[in-house]
């Protein structure tokens, strides 16, 4: 295994995040704080508790998940799209490095960045609300698995996209709406029955629900269903990445 190459790609990508700290860390933290002000303070004052948890605390897992999904996709898609856009991808493709190692470098860095960001947001949330985590190991498992899975999705989008517009298309039109409608800021029980059934078709519901369960022990769907959904996502993403490299899709004509 070419560990030097994995390390080179990983460090290169992490250094890029370091150079754009405002964009990669400060901006999401400020956004999250704004969510707390708007949803937690303004709306939260009218909703006292949800299933025994204060509304401010209730939305924390959803907020972290929102940032985790969008930042994982954004980091990973940009990480591979930019070398394609500038042409420097030639170097990676001509290096003695396997597909698995390429994915490990790019997706590993993107997932690391968003996982760290998730923990930073968790720390930020602690300033606004009293937090307690019932199942810290499961919380970390959900955090890491979601970061990896959505970084893989971002990697796929970055390879598929041939313009900056396409790069933004999936996150803006699919990921963000699904997250907002996936119970990040409410419990599914608060919806009319018809919408509850419709919402269950949204895969993000399972991620948010499982993640929230690891905090407070409450969930919209069973934890097993959440875990299965995470692994299904992971398996599908891996299968697509495998197909991309096997066929050379948009990378090696």
């Amino acid at each position, binding site marked *: 295994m070419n560990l*030097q*190459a994995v*390390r080179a790609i990983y460090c290169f990508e992490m250094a890029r995040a370091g150079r754009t700290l405002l964009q990669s860390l400060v901006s999401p933290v400020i956004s999250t704080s704004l969510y707390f002000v708007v949803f937690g303070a303004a709306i939260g004052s009218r909703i006292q508790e949800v299933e025994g948890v204060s509304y401010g605390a209730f939305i924390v897992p959803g907020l972290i998940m929102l940032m985790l999904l969008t930042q994982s996709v954004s980091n990973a898609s940009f990480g591979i799209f930019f*070398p394609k856009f500038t042409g420097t991808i*030639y170097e*990676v493709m*001509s*290096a*003695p490095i396997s597909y698995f190692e390429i994915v490990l470098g790019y997706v590993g860095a993107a997932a690391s960045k968003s996982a760290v960001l998730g923990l930073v947001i968790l720390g930020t949330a602690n300033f606004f609300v009293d937090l307690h985590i019932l199942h810290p190991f499961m919380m970390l498992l959900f955090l890491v698995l979601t970061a990896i899975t959505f970084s893989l999705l971002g990697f796929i989008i970055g390879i598929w996209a041939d313009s900056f517009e396409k790069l933004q298309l999936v996150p803006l039109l699919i990921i963000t709406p699904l997250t907002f409608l996936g119970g990040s800021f409410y419990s599914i029980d608060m919806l009319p029955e018809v919408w509850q059934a419709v919402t269950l078709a949204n895969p993000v519901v399972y991620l948010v629900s499982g993640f929230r369960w690891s905090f407070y022990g409450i969930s919209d769907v069973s934890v097993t269903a959440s875990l299965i959904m995470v692994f299904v996502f992971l398996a599908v993403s891996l299968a697509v990445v495998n197909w991309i490299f096997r066929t*050379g899709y948009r990378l090696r004509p």
Partner: protein
Amino acid sequence: MSHPTATASSPAAASSAPAAEPAPVIEITGLSKRYDSGFEALKQIDLEIRRGEIFALLGPNGAGKTTLISIICGLVNASTGQVKVDGHDNVSAYRAARAKIGLVPQELTSDAFETVWNTVRFSRGLFGRKPDDAHIERVLKSLSLWDKRKNKLITLSGGMKRRVLIAKALAHEPEILFLDEPTAGVDVALRRDMWEVVRELRASGVTIILTTHYIEEAEEMADRIGVINRGEIVLVREKQALMRQLGSKQLTLQLQQPLASVPPALAHYPLSLDEGGSVLVYTYDASDPNAQGQVPISTLLNDIEAAGIRFKDLHTKQSSLEEIFVNLVRERQ
């Protein structure tokens, strides 16, 4: 004079090394590439590159030069055929094959916001080599980039960016270096500097394959020349032999009085009139004085004088590689 196409049909034979020579560092057999669009970029290419040589690949735009290099380096999948790099198949043993190759692409691609030092260091790691700052320093100094090592690539001129690409390609100490149009868009002084760098690399044992539009570049540096046109290798030959065999020579006489036509007494010579009859041109094969129908220059000059033709000046001109190349491609079309 031998006809160019007479040698074109067997490029592999022309390039095959004598038994005493070492094995070729790159062996290409039956290589072809058809893109999804149906465009056939390469057609059954057979080619061998000798260890330690500078091989220049010439061809017009769209001839298949970059596709050929891209397949060897692993950027493009071949449709058929095989490439061996120092004995390693570049598909089944891609790690060993690619580790030996450094590639300087045609386009000036760069990580705009990265520093020279970091980007070259990244390249070394990507090729599986442990960090070696002393080597990176040597490479940067040899390319006059040491003073720019902390500069971001976006701040560099085109020529400097080209040097950075060479530094990146050399970061992992490759045995084979591909230079795809290395001096495109580079000014004359910098081009000569680059030629010097390439010569030094060759002297250190690196095999160099370069594609170029500047025939002067191939003429100046190459040991062997390959001409590719419409996806086929038209010819592979030692540069000197190529210029000797395919290059014609011209003797030009500036006449004191213009002629309306070549006098009948000189009709058996391949003479022609130019510039309204004030210039008499004799085309001959300098490499073979005993060629059929060819006489010594002194005999021709005596006959010209005997015909009552006076000239005020004369000069000779050897056809350049560029003319050879243009003729070759034109004949093929």
